[in-house]
């Protein structure tokens, strides 16, 4: 999209119609009003992204050779393994690499960031202080090599409060009682944060062998018939740690609260995989000290 505003023409008409729409449940709506938050509109942002070509001949191509620069010199994670067997045959996998696909992460962030920017733009249109109850999804459109990002939430005005800094509304995945408790605990939501890490595994001979059911010892060695597949374990750990670190990079010294994390893996060959880890949460900032909490009192519910 281009032009001064990224939101469709219908959006301002809908938002200026004089009534509000909201994605809040009735209990959350009630809690929202109790906190002095007035819903002013259901706001959303979209972005459809075409994935680039990362294969042979692509400027993004990485990792096809042990001598290339995994991560493309972009500071990405990379780890290598070498075959313990020496020269066996030309098709023997003498080296293996795990590396971060920074260009995939950048594309995902671009899609998510564009959709989020449009959500915030719609919220600004209605003069909101914040957006609560944010929900975001991303999925591939049918067979088109295109991913759609969709973020929506309820724009709210804090009755009597001055405009947010730079006019940019804050946002949070929370709503209702959870948001009320967050505020009571002394935390102010700043923004939703989502981060992704993509790790490509190029298996070396032992990883390929073990992932296909080979017995667990290298030639000449004896021992247990099971063993850890180190390259895959490291890749899983790296994907999760990188996603956390990417989110941490957006935090400053704030807190990322209520994280949800999910990991997907896609097998692309014998032992070869792409691992993706997605992490979401609400960035919150302390605006007052914790009030001293009384010791919890155990209770037994009678319902």
């Amino acid at each position, binding site marked *: 999209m281009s032009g001064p505003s990224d939101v469709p023409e219908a959006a301002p008409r809908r938002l200026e119609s004089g009534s509000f729409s909201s*994605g809040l*449940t009735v*209990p*959350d709506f009630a809690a929202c009003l*109790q*906190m*002095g938050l007035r819903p002013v509109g259901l706001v959303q942002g979209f972005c459809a992204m075409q994935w680039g070509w990362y294969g042979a001949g692509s400027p993004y191509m990485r990792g096809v050779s042990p001598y290339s620069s995994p991560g493309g010199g972009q500071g990405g994670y990379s780890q290598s393994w070498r075959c313990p067997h020496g020269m066996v045959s030309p098709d023997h996998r003498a080296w293996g690499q795990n590396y971060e696909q920074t260009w995939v992460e950048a594309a995902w962030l671009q899609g998510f960031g564009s959709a989020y920017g449009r959500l915030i733009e719609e919220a600004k249109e209605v003069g909101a*202080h*914040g957006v609560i*109850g*944010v*929900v975001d999804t991303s999925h591939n459109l049918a067979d088109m090599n295109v991913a759609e990002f969709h973020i929506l939430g309820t724009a709210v005005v*804090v*009755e009597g*409060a*001055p405009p*947010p*800094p730079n006019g940019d509304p*804050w946002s949070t995945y929370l*709503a209702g*009682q959870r948001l009320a*408790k967050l*505020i*009571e*605990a002394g935390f*102010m939501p*700043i923004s939703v944060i989502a981060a992704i890490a993509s790790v490509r595994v190029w298996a070396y001979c032992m990883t390929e062998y*073990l*992932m*296909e*059911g*080979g*017995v667990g010892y290298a030639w000449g060695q004896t021992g247990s018939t*099971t*063993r*850890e*597949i180190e390259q*895959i*374990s490291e890749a*899983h*750990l790296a994907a*999760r*740690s990188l996603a*956390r670190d990417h989110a941490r990079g957006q935090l400053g*010294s704030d807190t*990322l609260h*209520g994280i949800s*994390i999910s990991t997907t893996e896609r097998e692309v060959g014998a032992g070869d995989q792409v691992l993706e880890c997605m992490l979401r949460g609400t960035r919150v*900032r302390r*605006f*007052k000290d914790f009030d001293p909490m*009384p*010791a*919890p*009192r*155990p*209770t*037994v*519910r*009678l319902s």
Partner: protein
Amino acid sequence: MSATTPQSPIDARAEMLSAATWLAKGGGSPGGRAVTSDLSIDEALLLHSIGWEPVELVFGVSVTSVPTGVWTWGRGEISAASDAHNLAVQAAAERLGHECATVGGYGVVGVRVSVEVRPHHVDVALVGTAVRPSGKKAPVGRPFVSDLSARDFVLLTSSGWSPLGLAFGASFIYAPRRAAATAIRQSGQNIELTNLTEALYSARESAMERMQSSGLGMGAQGVVAVKITEGPMSFARHVIGFTAWGTSVRLEADRHVYLKPDMVLPLDDAVIQFEAQSLRG
């Protein structure tokens, strides 16, 4: 658990206005290291009430190989699969504890356990939040690992007990076959299949025994919140897998502290969770 009722009701409107005004006036970050946590706000508050705080979201993962051929027909326990499971769990828990110690945590609570048994490998992933007593920097001793929620952790420690680690046990067995003549003789009858009963019974006991042994190995007095999974492998229906795990605990106080719970009859709706997915029908 519920917090003691405060002396005066909370003015949620004033709190929200105060927070939004503070932010509008350029409220900045407090400085220091950022915190990441998958705890809910209730859990964070409960932890705070006993003087603990979240530090970092931490992970432990291990993928262990299972050799070809172990899932084909046979008799008795499939020890290679059980070994692979135990190895993966131990390695994942060790990494989780190590990562916790690295960030200055005293232990990990609310660990989500994911175990996937596949034809050629067992995948174990543990995710939880490292916690510590508020303001304390250097952990003492080996961090604990617990799949108890922060709520259960608060209750456990208030009762004088401490979590030590995850106790795990697994057993994979072939479903025993009957001889053809026996199967024909028993067809159409109401009859106990003793070979199957014995095999499954034995496998269950083995899994639980291993879990208890791993708890004892940590110096625990018991295992709480035990979870048991069982069922045929999706890729080998003639193999039945049993796993059992829970948090091993030890009494740290001189004696168990009885908490005397109050009876509560709530008047609110039990379902208060925000569910915006309903927007999508």
